């Protein structure tokens, strides 16, 4: 009887897991099947024509790339710095719990609220206008919780023995962190961060109000220029375009490129992790 029950549970859990894979597989299959026909050199290297019904999506790719780079540049130092403080320096008291609560809350804020926040603070109050600067800052706020949590976990994963040994050899706290904590936790931090940023790269709501342009005839010249971006371009093509029904291949092609970009980021994260895992093993 017990054996049968066990088999039943095993089978059920397996089917549930397979179901998840099937859903992901179907999404990938659908996008690839319909998008592959749109993919060619012209599609990724030229500007859109007729509001995106023809031509390529080059400026949107460039725009999303800039936004990702900008977000990384802002949130990585902030997130890692914050995590080091929380994991290594902060007293584990009430104030610390409050900071943690704030971070968890921040992670649960809907992305459109981040968009509105970015509009209010960075676009209007700081006067950046709709720009790469404002968009990157907004996206950075959004991924900050992910980065802090991932970084803190990987800092805490460094064995206590390394800390004790460093201190006992006369290292100061910062020397200990710099020489015997950060080198081992950096890969985990970067991996977690890239996965978070990968998600942000596909977000529409935060950039909608802070940076994204429907169409721009030229590439941005500074961080205070607007850019086109893949998720927003896709949103326009799929829902706002007068010819939405007739340009399915353009929509799928854009989706496929966005997907490849995010997968590329995740793959990069995995490569970094394996590289460091081989280097430091304990």
């Amino acid at each position, binding site marked *: 009887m017990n054996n049968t029950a066990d088999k039943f549970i095993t089978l059920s859990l397996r089917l549930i897991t397979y179901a998840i894979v099937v859903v992901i597989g179907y999404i990938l299959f659908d996008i690839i099947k319909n998008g592959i026909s749109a993919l060619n050199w012209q599609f990724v290297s030229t500007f859109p024509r007729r509001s995106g019904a023809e031509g390529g999506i080059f400026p949107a790719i460039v725009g999303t790339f800039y936004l990702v780079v900008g977000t990384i540049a802002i949130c990585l130092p902030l997130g890692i710095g914050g995590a080091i403080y929380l994991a290594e320096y902060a007293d584990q008291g009430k104030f610390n719990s409050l900071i943690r609560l704030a971070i968890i809350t921040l992670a649960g804020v809907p992305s459109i609220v981040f968009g509105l926040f970015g509009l209010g603070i960075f676009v209007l109050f700081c006067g950046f206008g709709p720009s790469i600067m404002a968009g990157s800052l907004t996206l950075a706020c959004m991924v900050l919780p992910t980065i802090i949590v991932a970084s803190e976990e990987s800092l805490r994963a460094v064995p206590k*023995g390394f800390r004790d*040994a460093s*201190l*006992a*050899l*006369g*290292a100061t706290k910062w020397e200990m962190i710099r020489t015997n904590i950060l080198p081992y936790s950096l890969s985990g931090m970067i991996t977690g961060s890239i996965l978070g940023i990968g998600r942000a790269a596909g977000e529409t709501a935060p950039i909608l109000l802070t940076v994204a342009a429907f169409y721009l005839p030229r590439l941005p010249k500074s961080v205070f220029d607007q850019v086109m971006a893949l998720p927003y371009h896709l949103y326009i093509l799929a829902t706002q375009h007068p010819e939405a029904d007739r340009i399915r291949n353009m929509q799928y092609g854009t989706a496929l490129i966005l997907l490849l970009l995010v997968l590329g980021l995740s793959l990069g994260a995995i490569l970094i992790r394996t590289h460091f895992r081989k280097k*430091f*093993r*304990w």
Partner: protein
Amino acid sequence: MVEHSIYPKDMEMVITTNQVNFYYGPTQALFDISLLIPAKHVTALIGPSGCGKSTFLRCLNRMNDTIPHSRVIGNIFINQKNIYAPGTDVVELRKEVGMVFQKSNPFPKSIFDNVAYGPRIHGEKDHNRLTEIVEQSLQQAAIWDEVKDRLHANAMGLSGGQQQRLCIARALAVGPKILLMDEPASALDPKSTTRIEDLIGELRNNYTIVIVTHNMQQAARVSDYTAFFYEGQLIECDATPKIFTNPRQKQTEDYITGRFG
């Protein structure tokens, strides 16, 4: 109770503790510990788990500073300097007083980089000088012959006993006068334990060693003086043969004859 009488008259004392009390938050872990530790001898701290011997050891290089809400009341003098006086440079103290931990904890770096770690953070950059220190330290820790051909291999590839001797070499590389050992052989097999004990026997010629051990035979084998701790109190300290043959306190006798602990 500072017991001068147990030591020969002209013996040099390196560590003097004077009524040391230690608290983890509201819990008192050490009560009025007054102990003298002689230079270039091995002093063993024994007692049942939770008796405070490790806590006391970790007071001697202020490793307990890292524990939140912990407090020390009392004085510990090392070379006539009060190490808990305000303005004490903890880095300098830990250069003087090295420590070896229960669980061997080499860094996931090369054998060379492990030993060179201490000298490097203290500003030694000259490669020849570092090479010299590394060789000397590894030789002192009796592991040179085993690793001299693979100094740049990862230290994690060494066996448990080798790792512990590497950690001793790493501690010696900083040039301490005093070596604190917190159950250095408790996680090792008998053969590796013997090697560590032999090593302690050699090091005692040049270093003052304080060793915490659970293993009474080990205390009897390696130490010159033994201090028995029980429930945060120092019950008795005497020459090791005396403690193990003719202790003055009933509790000591009960413990060493295996009646508790």
